[in-house]
């Protein structure tokens, strides 16, 4: 596209050739703004557009804005164009609307904090309502044991727990390896090789295996709950269930929560085994402690209570992960973006709550002296 401007008396004659369209007008936009300023006090702008090969509504709108600005400066515009192009120009001039951009409604820092506080409060209330519904649904389960959806529970157990065993095995085995390897260097210095068993046994059974298992399950199964239920909400499957008399709490929510509460202790048990196995391998290689010796020392040094303390956290962690995952799924609005947001939140909140819960257990067990 080429543009020529020529001043004749109080008239500026502008000739445009070539393609004047959405792809090319950006190059002349600043030029026209300058032209307008420099050519005042000209009274008229004559536009010759007959030689254009392509012309579209974006270009017509550029001419329209130029005309509007020139009128505000006391000048007029006249366009000479062939009929097709003139039609496009006429179309953009014919208007019964006000064009405008959108205002950026960015909030100030105080308002942002306030809005966040209100949102947190609201979502806390929503969560309480969710827990309330959960327990009333649980009551139905207990009063009418026939309404328990065993099939759904089995399915949830398979999906969220059994299928997670592979990744649980790998992570906890590696944790055992890393832990044993790091401490073996220190222990070797003091010649206290055998204490690797005490150290690993107590820390893994009591704290690490439950925590690592919970984190993996939150990332893998909690997020899956949130996404599944979120999508079901968007596709109106939840509404369809309600209208057909299938209470989603009985069919979707409780089976998943029960599944994780039942399975979490078993997952922790499995995680214990794998982590100790990892420790055993390193102990054998690095510290020369045979498997036989390791197991003997384990029997002697690690009390049964450590194992039970670890396992006892399972149902609580399971409840937290499943409840938060499902709650976040139910919070999804009619908007694909909110699936992503809520899935992320489900994982972050579940891990955070699991750690809080773990801290509370730690305080309780310490004050109980076990």
């Amino acid at each position: 596209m080429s543009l020529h401007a020529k001043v004749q008396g109080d008239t500026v004659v502008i000739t445009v050739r070539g393609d004047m369209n959405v792809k090319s007008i950006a190059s002349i936009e600043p030029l026209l703004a300058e032209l307008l300023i420099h050519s005042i006090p000209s009274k008229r702008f004559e536009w010759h557009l007959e030689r254009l090969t392509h012309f579209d509504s974006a270009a017509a709108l550029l001419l329209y804005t130029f005309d509007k600005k020139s009128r505000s400066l006391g000048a007029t515009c006249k366009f000479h164009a062939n009929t097709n192009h003139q039609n496009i120009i006429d179309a953009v001039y014919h208007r019964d609307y006000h064009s405008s951009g959108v205002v950026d409604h960015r909030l100030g820092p105080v308002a942002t904090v306030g809005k966040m506080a209100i949102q947190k409060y609201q979502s806390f209330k929503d969560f309480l309502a969710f827990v309330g519904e959960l327990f009333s649904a649980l009551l139905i389960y207990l009063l009418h044991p026939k309404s328990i959806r065993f099939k759904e529970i089995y399915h949830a157990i398979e999906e969220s727990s059994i299928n997670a065993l592979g990744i649980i095995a790998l992570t906890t085995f590696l944790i055992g390896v890393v832990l044993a390897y790091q401490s073996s260097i220190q222990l070797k210095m003091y010649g206290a090789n055998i204490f690797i068993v005490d150290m690993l046994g107590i820390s893994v059974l009591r704290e690490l295996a439950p925590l690592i298992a919970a984190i993996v399950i939150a990332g893998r199964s909690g997020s899956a709950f949130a996404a599944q239920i979120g999508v079901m909400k968007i596709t109106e499957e939840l509404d369809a269930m309600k209208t057909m008399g299938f209470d989603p709490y009985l069919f979707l929510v409780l089976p998943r929560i029960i599944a994780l509460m039942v399975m979490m202790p078993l997952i922790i048990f499995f995680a214990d085994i794998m982590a100790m196995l990892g420790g055993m391998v390193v102990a054998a290689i690095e510290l020369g402690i045979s498997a036989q010796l390791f197991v003997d020392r384990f029997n002697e040094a690690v009390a049964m209570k450590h194992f039970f303390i670890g396992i006892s956290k399972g149902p609580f962690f399971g409840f937290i992960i499943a409840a938060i995952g499902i709650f976040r799924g139910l919070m999804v609005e009619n908007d694909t973006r909110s699936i992503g947001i809520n899935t992320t939140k489900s994982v972050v909140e579940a891990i955070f709550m699991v750690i809080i819960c773990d801290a509370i257990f730690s305080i309780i067990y310490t004050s109980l002296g076990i």
Partner: protein
Amino acid sequence: MQHVIEAKNILTRFGQTIVHQDINLHVNRGEIYGLLGPSGCGKTTLMKEMVLLQKYQGGSMKVLGYDLNHIGHQKAQELRQQWGVLFQFGALYSSLNIYDNIAVSLREYTMISEALIAEIVSYKIHIVGLEQSVKEQYPSEISGGMKKKAGLARALVMDPKLLFLDEPTSGLDPISAREFDALILRLRDRFDLSIVMVTHDLDSIEATLDRAAILDEKRVVAEGDLQTIKATDNLFIKTFFKGR
């Protein structure tokens, strides 16, 4: 370039199932062309092949003079800026408001100033018959019909030469559907558009289409203007146009 789209001997297969066999058709410049046929006949698949969303397994296709069999990344990007596509449910970006949904191509592909972008977006919203107040709303906050119109505004923002519409009137109430037909005709006349659409809506077919192709049993069983098509001896056509 008289034919904006030319498909020759198109073969499409999903695994073992053959969807299209020997599809031949062309779309003339400036016409509204319909892809019709029973559900599952591969109309939408054929349209997806035209807009480079899906590959066909045999034959050749030319769109706006670009040969889709031998198209590189650069050429494909060039071509994509010359058409607009309206999806069945609008397919608006849910993270952007309506204004930004429409403006996104302008910001990405041109250096046009924000002031002029506002003009262009406002104009497109006006011509598709939406209120200016929808600009600040998000796709989740507006109705299905409005989403379609906003989707059309987005498809039109680069002043394309070719417009693809996937079931533009489905899900609209009859009044909005007829308005949509009128809108499509008006756009074609004003902006020298060629339009390809997949549709089931008989009123819309009668009102807007210049020519159409009927896909049935993997092939094009009839192509041409509505008179020619109605005269064709085919079970689907007979039942579909019954009494018209």
